[in-house]
Every structure is written in C-alpha cells, then in structure tokens.
C-alpha cells in the first residue's frame, strides 16, 4: 500500500506493530460478503445483498518503534475500527496483527490480558474515565487491575499526573475537570502502565481548538521524553501532519496512501488525497470565536489603577483590559501607565490606551494577520452591540495558521 515510487532509501526501521490484510465486517453472512468483496462488488452492493457492513477492507501498514503513526479519514472510513483491532477490543474478520512478530490473535485470554496490561494502552475520544473515582484512582486503574501494590501504584500515578501537569488535582472528581483536563487524565492513565504502544482514538477531537493545540504540543513533548510508539487516529489533516512521522489516509475502509507528511504533500497518490491536504489551510476555516479567550486581567472603570495593578501582578501580565459598568470596552491600561497613575503623575482616564484594535467573533482569523502584526496588545473581541467579549492573542492567531 505504501506509495513507493519516491521512497527514499531510509534505513529499515524497527517494526513494533505490523498489520497485514486486516478486514473487518459486521453482520452474519460474512462468508458470502467476502466472496462478493473478492468479486470487486462495491460496499453498498454487499450491504444490500447480504446485510454485511464492510468496515475495513484488506489494509496493511507497519508501525515503527518510537514513532507516531497517524491514521486519518472522514467519519465512517473505518479508522476507529482499525485501532480497536490492535488491542483486540474487536476481533478482525480476516488478517493478521503482529506485535513484535507475534500474532496477537493467537494469544490465550491470560496472554491477551498481559498484552493489554503491559504493552498497549488506549486513549479514547470520549475519555472513557470512571466518573465514580477521583483523578488519582483513575490514573492508577491500569496498575490496579494488573495487581500492583497500592502504595506503588499511587506513587506511579502521582508521577504521571505531574507529567501531564495536573498536580494538585489528584483528589478532584472527574466531574470537576474541563475537557482538556479530562483527556490529560486519560493520557496519564495510559502512560501509567508504561506501555510500548499508545493507541489514541481521536483523543483531541472533543476539545476546543485552542486546548487541542496545547494537547498536541504536550503529546509531542511527552513522546520526546518517553519515546513511546503512538498510533494516532484523527479526522483533522493538520493534526495528522503535525503529529505523524507517517500518515495513512483512509477512505471507505481502505488505505489510499501511507507516507511521511512531506512525501504525501509532494506526491499525493490521487485527487482525494490532494483535496484532503488542501483542506489543511485552516486559517480560512477558523473564526475568532474558536480562539478567543477571557483576559485574565479585566477591570471595571471605577475600580481604578490600584485594582488593575494588583490583578496584573497576580496574573503575571503587563496590561489590563478596562470596561465600563455596562461591559462596553473602554481601553487597555499598560503596566507602566498604571504605575504613573498610582504615583499621581497621570489621571486614570488619560492613562488608558484607547486606539486598541478590535474585532468581532465571526471574523476569519486569516483577516486578522495584518492587524495582529502591528498591534501592541492582544486584539479585543466585541459583540455585535459593542460589549466586550474577550481577547485574541497574537500567539493564538499565529498558531492557528500552522
């Protein structure tokens, strides 16, 4: 399946996971369906004639140790089915899955549990966390079912919680966490087992774009540190290219092309692939609303410079956004001007910078680039009626372009 004509002579890597001719059907008359599939009938025809859904059709790929392999495709392309075959949550209809050369379908129950407990962990789109447990006990779950002694597993879980930057939240209930934090718990839980392979089934798809960027970055830095092998499922081509050392594009249960992002961009296998890649310029797609934030330092006009200074200090920022009583945006108070006001050198009203760039929620991010490059402060986002809604930082605008 690999797109071969431009393959560079790279060293043959250490293959940890190898998928050969994987086929997955759902329904009763699989034999007949396989027959029809061999006769090159389309999936719709097969479904109509036999009632069998062909989710995955004869796919093969290799995953190199220590690398990130992304599988990308639209919903219904079979990518989630594939990843569930890799730890046998689903049993393939046909084909082989080799872990370090061993056929995992030949594993007995006990050996399969060992495989799941020590070698392969999974992160889920909907997090799959246990809502009746706190963060710490969620992270320790994998070690708990493996039978690791309580103190050991809690220590290890604590380490993982620190690694995903959730220290201080270990006693909290899952309900108290935001989506991004929940997925950090999911990742910590998967890492606690110290697996060879991480299976990630659209782990960031349920998160806000901005949080998603953070999580992608964090995954890369964790991977750098621990050097895990990752099989990453996504429907977002940007995510696939940003994270993947190799990328497989799936369509209708087949892999169309497996390649490095660079190769794929230069030599797309067909029109579908190139169309997919072209959709990558997401600054065209994203609006301000996806990236705006509430400023950590927002003060009312009558609160004055001292409050603004205190807020700036505690939030570690150098400017405060000032609104009047009705949330109308007035201006920005820079740190130096605030000091001058406190020293009595400048009246509060005059210290405010009022010609700050503003925008609206539904502006395209790409339209902001020229404004952002000239603006001294993050751009203020206003509602239709002029009320203050939030800010969008230059960093957010630039990362959205990646």
């Amino acid at each position, binding site marked *: 399946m690999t797109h071969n004509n431009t393959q560079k002579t790279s060293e043959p890597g250490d293959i940890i996971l190898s998928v050969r001719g994987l086929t997955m059907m759902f329904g009763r008359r699989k034999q007949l369906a396989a027959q029809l599939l061999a006769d090159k009938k389309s999936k719709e025809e097969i479904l109509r004639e036999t009632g069998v859904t062909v989710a995955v059709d004869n796919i093969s790929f290799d995953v190199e140790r220590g690398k990130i392999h992304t599988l990308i495709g639209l919903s219904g392309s079979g990518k989630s089915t594939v990843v*569930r075959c890799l*730890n046998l*949550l689903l049993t393939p209809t046909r084909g082989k899955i080799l872990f370090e050369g061993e056929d995992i379908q030949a594993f007995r129950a006990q050996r*399969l*549990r*060992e*495989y*799941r*407990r*020590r070698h*392969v*962990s*999974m992160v*889920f*789109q*909907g*997090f*799959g*966390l*246990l*809502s*009746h*447990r706190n963060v710490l006990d969620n992270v320790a*779950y*994998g070690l*708990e*079912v*493996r039978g690791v002694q309580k103190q050991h597993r809690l220590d290890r879980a604590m380490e993982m919680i620190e690694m995903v930057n959730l220290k201080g939240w270990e006693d909290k209930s899952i309900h108290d966490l935001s989506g991004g934090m929940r997925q950090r718990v999911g990742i910590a*839980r998967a890492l606690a*087992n110290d697996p060879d392979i991480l*299976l990630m089934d659209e782990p960031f798809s349920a998160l806000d774009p901005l949080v998603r960027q953070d999580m992608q970055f964090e995954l890369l830095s964790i991977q750098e540190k621990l050097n895990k092998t990752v099989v990453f499922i996504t429907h977002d081509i940007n995510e696939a290219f940003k994270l993947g050392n190799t990328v497989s594009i799936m369509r209708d249960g087949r892999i169309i092309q497996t390649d490095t992002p660079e190769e794929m961009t230069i030599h797309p296998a067909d029109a579908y692939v190139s169309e997919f890649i072209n959709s990558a310029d997401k600054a065209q797609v994203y609006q301000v609303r996806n990236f705006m934030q509430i400023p950590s330092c927002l003060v009312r006009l009558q609160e004055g410079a001292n409050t603004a200074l205190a807020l700036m200090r505690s939030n570690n920022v150098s400017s405060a956004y000032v609104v009047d009583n009705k949330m109308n945006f007035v201006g920005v108070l820079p740190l130096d001007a605030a000091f001058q006001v406190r020293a009595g050198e400048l009246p509060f009203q005059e210290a405010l910078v009022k010609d700050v760039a503003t925008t609206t929620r539904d502006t395209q991010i790409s339209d902001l680039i020229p404004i952002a490059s000239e603006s001294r402060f993050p751009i203020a986002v206003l509602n239709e009626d002029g009320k203050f809604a939030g800010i969008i930082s230059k960093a957010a605008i630039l990362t959205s372009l990646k």
Partner: protein
Amino acid sequence: MSEWLTKFPEGLYLDIKKPIDRAIEYMMNNWGAAFDGISGFLRLILLGVQAAINVIPWWLMVAAVFFAAWAVTRNPLRALMYAAMLFMIGLIGLWNLMYTTLAIIITSVFIALVLGFPLGILISFSARSGRLVRPVLDTMQTMPSFVYLIPAVMLLGLGNVPAVIATVIYAMPPIVRMTNLGIRSVDREVVEASKAFGSTRWQLLVKVLIPQAMPTIMAGINQTIMMAIAMVVTSSMIGARGLGSEVLTGINRLESGRGFAAGIAIVIMAVLIDRLTQGMAGKKVQ
C-alpha cells in the same frame, strides 16, 4: 348464519385448571420436605430480623430516623417532621404492629435483592437469558397477587412465611430490571477502557460496571422496597400479622377508624423509607 362466527365455539375447550390443580397437588405430596425446608429457612431469617428490630427501643428508632433524615436532607426541620411522623405511629397505638410489618418488609426486600441483583447482572450480560427472563418478570408483575397466594398457602401454610414469598415475587422485578438497565447503559468507551487495560471480567464487573450503574441500581432498590410495602395488606389475607391484618380486621368488622389508623401508619412507613433510601441513593450519585 353459522353460530361459530358470532359466538366462540362451545366445543373448543382446553382445560388448564385441572392440570394446574394436579401439579400443585403433586408438589404438595412429593416435594413437601423441600417446601418445609424453604419455609423453615425463611422463618429463621424472619425471626432473626424480628428479634433484631425488637431490640431497638422506640425512642432510639425515632432518634435514628431523625439523625438519618438530617444527614440525608441536611434540613433539621424536615428531619424533625419525619421523626414526629414515626412517633405518631406509636401514638395511635400501632408501634408493635408496625415492627412486625417492618420485619416482613425487610426480610422480603433482603431476599428479593439477594435473588434479583445477580439475576439482573446475568441478563445484562446475555441477551438470550434476557429474552427468557423478561416475560417471567412481566408475569410476576402483572399476575394478580391473589392468584399465587392460593398455592403459597397450600404449600407453605398460613402465616408470615408465605407472605414473605408472595412479597418477594411481587417486589423482585424492579431490582432485576434496573440492575440490567444500569449495567447496560454504562458508557461504551468506559467499558472499552476497562477491557483495554486488561481487566478480567470480574474486575470489569466490580470495579467499573456495578459502581457506574449504582444510581440506577439504587433506584431499583427503592422501587423494590415500595412494592414490598404495597403488598402489606394483600399478604395479610394469608395470615401475615402486622398493620395489614389490622386493616383486614377493620374491613371484616366494618370499623373505619381501625382501617384508617393502620392505613395512615402504612403511609407514614412508606414515606419515611422512600425519602431516606432515595436520599441515600442521591448522595451516592454525587
């Protein structure tokens, strides 16, 4: 016009009464020892529960309800009201009868849970056993309870023991259904996650499925208790003592006051037990 079109044909008749009579008779004659055994076992549990409750003096019970209600509702006024309602039962002279009824209810609910909870788990795992059990549960819930009171009396005699059996039959379906429902509605990814980390089936059940299903299971327990209370009067017809027999006496002697007094006591019991168990269930959820 031929008659069979307008009237059900007289010649067509399947006698199911006699075979049923004969089956019950057969059971009486041949399995007597087994039924005596069951009966003895149930009587033992019942006496144990009764003895345990009777140790509790009235003031301790009232105080316990007060503190339990306070803990559950976090509202001392309401707790005081519940305690006063319980006190009221003693005030109208029905304290001892209430204890007898309570013992029957506790025993019945206990047996219903011991049988129903595992059954609910079983049918949540296997669609086939679910198809078998569901019509049985429907029958248990819809069959008028008087119908099975007759063989219960024949096989087990009059008294509190057949009352417990009749109550168990009537009160068991909710806990079976709700356990099944609760386990089946556990989030698919949560179940997958548990499997993906190498849980055994037992670990999946006790560490994930049952705790996740707990709110629904608690609702099932609550319903089972309520249905057990609803059987109090009916089961007095086969000799169960307690508040139900008081109502029955009221009917037989046309004493409205006696009937209402016992009725009010039953309502108070139902309200108290419902609020307390529901409160505990609600707490679990958070």
